[in-house]
Structure formats: structure tokens, C-alpha cells
């Protein structure tokens, strides 16, 4: 499938900022089932950018903007060719051993309610366990395609009837780790036919011995298909955040995100 992606992130500040420094994780990498045909990041004002990698192996773009800045928009556009896969990630260089992804973070802390629930899902075969877990999370929640709530932990999301893709992926990670499978958060894009206000998507990956990293999308209860584009991974959503920013100045910020993912 050839996917055309357009992703605009705009910040408006209530007072002019003297400086902005941001770290963007907005660049997908090639893998066996994903080829980046065209990709660019545009900023709507003077900015200096430099590319690098973070500890997880994600491509990063540092963005340095001198003030006064009252607003800024980061515009990402590109085309990615995806092929149908069984969810197994192939052809991606890993910086860290799978065992690292058994760790928890504040957002993926081992919440007792999640652990108690997950304990019943254990099967003899890890892959069956993980598919069962993915399906069970899918069935339990109604997906909320609104803007994710920054800083909401898996434990906090667990008690809700509706949860965002980010919440579901973090719940998956908490449960999978508890069942002994390394798991991580993936940020990226997904083409949803039925979605009114698309947002960047988030799902999960878990490590299965002899297979490698396998994707699981609790929003569908399935493994990611060719309508998914993988961009960044980390222990939780914050670690893989598309934009991590710091600003020098007073006042509040207003964030506006637009995403379009279409078949090209």
C-alpha cells in the first residue's frame, strides 16, 4: 500500500517566547515491510535543524528557534510504501537488547488491577498469550480517538470505559511485561477509514523469542497491517513522543494537531 501522510503540529503561545528547543521524532525508518519513498519536515519560520538518533535508535531532529516566537508550525509530509506482514518487524537495527523492555516507567507502572486481570491470560505459548491479551484489551475498551491525555498512566486509564490508542498500548505494555514478555510503545500513523479527527497513532510491540519484535494494535485487536507506519519506539508514549519541547518564556501554549493518512 502506498500511504500519503500529512501531519501538522502547531503551537500558539499566549506570550512571545525567547527561544524554543525541540526534539522531534517524526521520521520513519525503512524496514522489511516499510519503505520511505519521500519524507520532509518543514517549519513555518526560521529554524535550525540537525538530525541524530536517540538511545532507542529512533531518528531525531533537533529544532532550534530564536525568538520572539508567538507561534510555530511543524509540517511533516511524505509517502511510505508498506507491505502486508504478519506483524513481525524485520530489518530494523535495534540499539538495546529486548530484556531492557521489561522495565516499567511512571506511565507504565505495574498497576495491581492490570496485573491481576492479565494473570488469567497466560497461555503456554507466548505468541498466543500476546494475541489473547491484545484481543482482550480491544474487547474491554471503547476506543477514544480524541486527543490523548498527556501524562495519563496505564493504571489511570484502566478504570475508564473509553481509552485512547495511547492508553491501550501502554496497558498492553504493562500487562505483557508482567507476563514476562518485553514490550514497548510505538508511535506512528494509521489510516482509519472511519475517523473524523485523525491523530498520530500509537500501538505496541512485544518481543517473542525466535520471532523478534511483533506489533499488536489493541485498537483493532490485531497486529498492525499495511495501513500502519511505524515511526518511533520507547518504553512508553512519552519516550517515543513525536515532539519533546522546551521553551524559554512566560505564558501558556495551545497545541493544534492535524493528521491526514490516505492511500496515495
Amino acid at each position, binding site marked *: 500500500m502506498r500511504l500519503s501522510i500529512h501531519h501538522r503540529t502547531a503551537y500558539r503561545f499566549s506570550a512571545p517566547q525567547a527561544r524554543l*528547543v525541540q*526534539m522531534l521524532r517524526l521520521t520513519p525508518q525503512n524496514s522489511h515491510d516499510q519503505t520511505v519513498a519521500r519524507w520532509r519536515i518543514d517549519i513555518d519560520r526560521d529554524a535550525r535543524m540537525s538530525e541524530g538518533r536517540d538511545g532507542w535508535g529512533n531518528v531525531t531532529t533537533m529544532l532550534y528557534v530564536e525568538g520572539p516566537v508567538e507561534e510555530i508550525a511543524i509540517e511533516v509530509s511524505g509517502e511510505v510504501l508498506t507491505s502486508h506482514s504478519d506483524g513481525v518487524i524485520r530489518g530494523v537495527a535495534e540499539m538495546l537488547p529486548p530484556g531492557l523492555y521489561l522495565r516499567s516507567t511512571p506511565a507504565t507502572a505495574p498497576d495491581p488491577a492490570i496485573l491481576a486481570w492479565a494473570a488469567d491470560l497466560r497461555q503456554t505459548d507466548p505468541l498466543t498469550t500476546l494475541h489473547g491479551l491484545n484481543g482482550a484489551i480491544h474487547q474491554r475498551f471503547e476506543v477514544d480517538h480524541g486527543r490523548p491525555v498527556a501524562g495519563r498512566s496505564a493504571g489511570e486509564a484502566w478504570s475508564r470505559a473509553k481509552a485512547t490508542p495511547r492508553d491501550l498500548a501502554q496497558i498492553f505494555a504493562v500487562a505483557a511485561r508482567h507476563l514476562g514478555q518485553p514490550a514497548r510503545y510505538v508511535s506512528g500513523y494509521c489510516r482509519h477509514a472511519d475517523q473524523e479527527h485523525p491523530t498520530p497513532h500509537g500501538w505496541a510491540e512485544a518481543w517473542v523469542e525466535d520471532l523478534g519484535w511483533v506489533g499488536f494494535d489493541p485498537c483493532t485487536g490485531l497486529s498492525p497491517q499495511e495501513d500502519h507506519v511505524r515511526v518511533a519506539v520507547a518504553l512508553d508514549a512519552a519516550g517515543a513522543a513525536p515532539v519533546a519541547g*522546551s521553551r524559554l518564556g512566560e505564558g501558556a501554549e495551545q497545541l493544534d494537531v492535524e493528521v491526514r493518512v490516505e492511500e496515495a
Partner: protein
Amino acid sequence: MRAQAFDEIMGMAGRPPRAELDALARWLEATPAIELRRRQHSAEAAFRQLGITFAVYGDNEASERIIPFDIVPRVFLPDEWDRLSRGLVQRVEAINAFLDDIYGERRILKEGVLPSDLILGNPQFRPEIAGIRPPHGVWAHICGIDLVRTGPDDFFVLEDNARTPSGVSYMLENREAMLRLCPELFRNFRVAAVDSYPDRLLEVMKSVAPRGVATPTCVVLTPGHFNSAYYEHSFLADSMGIELVEAADLVVDEDIVWMRTIAGRVKVDVIYRRVDDDFLDPLVFRPDSMLGVPGLIAAYAAGNVAIINAPGNGIADDKAIYSYMPEIVRYYTGSEASLPNVETWRCREPEALRYVLDHLDELVVKLVDGSGGYGMLVGPTASREEIDRFRAALVAEPHRYIAQPTLALSTVPTMAEAGLAPRHVDFRPFVLTGTRGVQVVPGGLTRVALREGSLVVNSSQGGGTKDSFVLMADAGATQSQSQSQSQIQALRPDGGAR
């Protein structure tokens, strides 16, 4: 119940003073207690005036106190020091090689020398900086290795400090006080000088500057004047003649670190930071950090700045890793550790936990990620309630604890209420690593437990400090660090990011 402690000046009780230190013993005898006390007060008054204070944590008053100073020095003989230095160089070489490996290829895990989960599950192992190699491959530029002694030739490493070890200002200020107050000692003994420390540190800093920088700009980064070690930060910057900066003074632009000055921006090449990893860069570590410099890790990853000590070093001085240091030293240096560890039970291992729970009243139990004497149980002096509290904590979270025997720490005569009396001591020498190898500064920080019988030397728990004399062999010898210089073969000569 405890074995008789070895006194470093007087030797064993009931025997004459150690022959080599007979002159010092005679000095102690000849100088009236009232005179020693007068000098001690004079030194403490000077420290108070300088503002060498520290804050006591967990104290509601958050009082600023000076650390008590004891006038009687602790002395190392030339051959003792040589052996000690060789062991320290070996240990620090291994620490550097370990850090280079663990954030790079991780051979030590692949070969099964260390259990992988010990590293990968350890919060001190920072995945955020995996794959970054510091300029010239030097990680632990400044190490403070805490040692204890139980006999003439028995030194043990109590813990490694490879993050931002503090206390070097006490080494320097204590010496200055001793030179002023007890000049006769320096006439009678050939004491190696420590005042070259700032110059040596600056040389180390310059040596690890990114390649192609002819005259590197070095700075000391402090969390600010409210930090308990602020005096030391400003003291070091001052004595090296470099700027003391706070995060707000630094900006990163296009992966280069700049310092704001009244004359405009100045590029910064080497940062001696006295700020914890968590507070270095809010884009990578704690996002709520006000102390950090946004973009600093990007500049570091791009190879444009050296950070002293390197981010991520906490994995090398973690107490859970400590118990594997003999294996780590053997793995990277190819020889046995010449400075042994204190015997350590890893409570994460069920058998060790069982032993520890059965012997809580004899052991010292420590949190693997605690410091400063907090979260510690000293079995022989603990109350029933304390022991019960630790027992519950151990059962709940065994992986967070290690336990060690209570050692008969050596003593040094110390000015007590009723006159000179033996008090237990430990020792923190400072070890510097630059591109030209590892060197041990001939001196260090001796901490003394001022309460009779106490084994806890931490300043937050009523400890004091002493000057530490390293005696030189003879007139022909230069300072002993020449023998302990070494090249770091374990580190590759090329710098920059991997």
C-alpha cells in the same frame, strides 16, 4: 564482641606505636590537648567563615552545618600508598572499560559474566544515552573510591563513586588548615602536596575536549547556591580559573553548547557538571527539570561537548553492581582485583536473603540505590524496631538491598571530649582519568565517626573529617602519582559518537 580494631598510628592496643609513625605518636604526646583543641577550633572557625557547610537531609530545619574537623591527621606510608594507588588505577580502568562496553557492545552481558537483568532492569542504566560514546571514550573522569581498612595491609573498597563524587574541597581546605596550624608536622614529615588537584583536574578536562578544539573552554555547571555542595562547586571553578555556570547560562544551538556572557556567546567544550543525570536535559531525562539545558544531550551525542562525568555512569557505582566488581575488574583488566571488595550478600539471591534475614543483628544492610548513610541498617547497634522494619522491607523488595559484615574499621586518634581517643575512619581518594591515563591524587578525604564505637562516618550522621597525609619515600622521589600513572589501553583512541 567485635574484633579489636587496628589503630593506624598506635597499632594494636597494648603494643607500642607503629615504628614508622613513632614520631607522630610522640608529637601527639608532646602537644597538650588544650593546644590541639585550640587549633581545631581555629580551623573550624575558618571553615565556617568560608561557608564550607552542608545541609542535612531529612532534617526539618534543613540546617546548614559545618562538618567537624579533627586536628590529628591520618597518615599513609609510601609503600602503603603505592599498593593502594595501583589498586585504585586498576579499579578505575575497569570502571571506564565497563561503562564503554555496557553502553556500547555489551560484551560482558553477551559472555554471561554479569546477569543481563542486573543491568537492563537497573534504573541506573540509562537507555536514553545508549550508543553515545563520550569524547575519547573516557567516562569516569573523576572517581571517589571509598575504602576501609582493617589491618596494616588490609584495605577494602566499600563503594565506588563514579557520578559526581564530592568532598575534594575538604581535602584541599583541610590541608590548608593543617599547613597553617601545624606547620611543624610538615617540617618533620615529607607530605605529598595535594594543592595541584585543581591544575590536574583542569588538565584532565582539557584533554577530553572534542577533537579539533585547540583551546577548549571549560566550565563547572552547578544546580545553584541552594545545593549542599555549592561551596565546592564555586571553590573548584575558582581554583581552576574557569566559569561557574547554572543551566540558565547555557544554551544549545545547532548541537553546540554556548555560554551567555556579557561579551556575547562563547562556545563551551567541556562541562564539569555537578548536576545529576535526571536534571541535565529536560528533552531526554526529566521533562519537568528546571535545572537542565535543553539540547545538551544532542550536543553530547554529536560529539561537540564533553560532559564530566559522563551521563549514565550511575550503573558503575550502583551497590548491586558493586558486588560484581571483582568479576568486572578481572574481565576488563585480565587480572584479579588488587583491592578486594567487602564481602557482600546480594539479597536478590534467595540463599543470600535467607542468610541476611537470619543474621540481621550482625550485618550492615544497605539500599542499592541509597547514599549518605540513608536507608541503612547497622545491625549490632540497631534497635529491635529498626531490625523489624528492615526485615519487612527486605522480604518485600529483596532486590533493593545488599548486606555486608560489620567490619572492625581501623581507628585513628581523634580529639574527643575527654582527650585523644581512637575513632573509626574511612577514606575517599580521588582518581582522575583523562586521555593520558589514570592518576591518583596523593591524599584524599578521611572521614571519621566522632561518636565512640560508631562505624557510620557520613557527615549527615555525625561524621567529621581529617587531613590525609601521604608520606613520600625519599628526597629523590617525586610525587607518588608518577608510579601510578598508566595508559588506558582498554579505551580506544578514537573519540566521538559511535
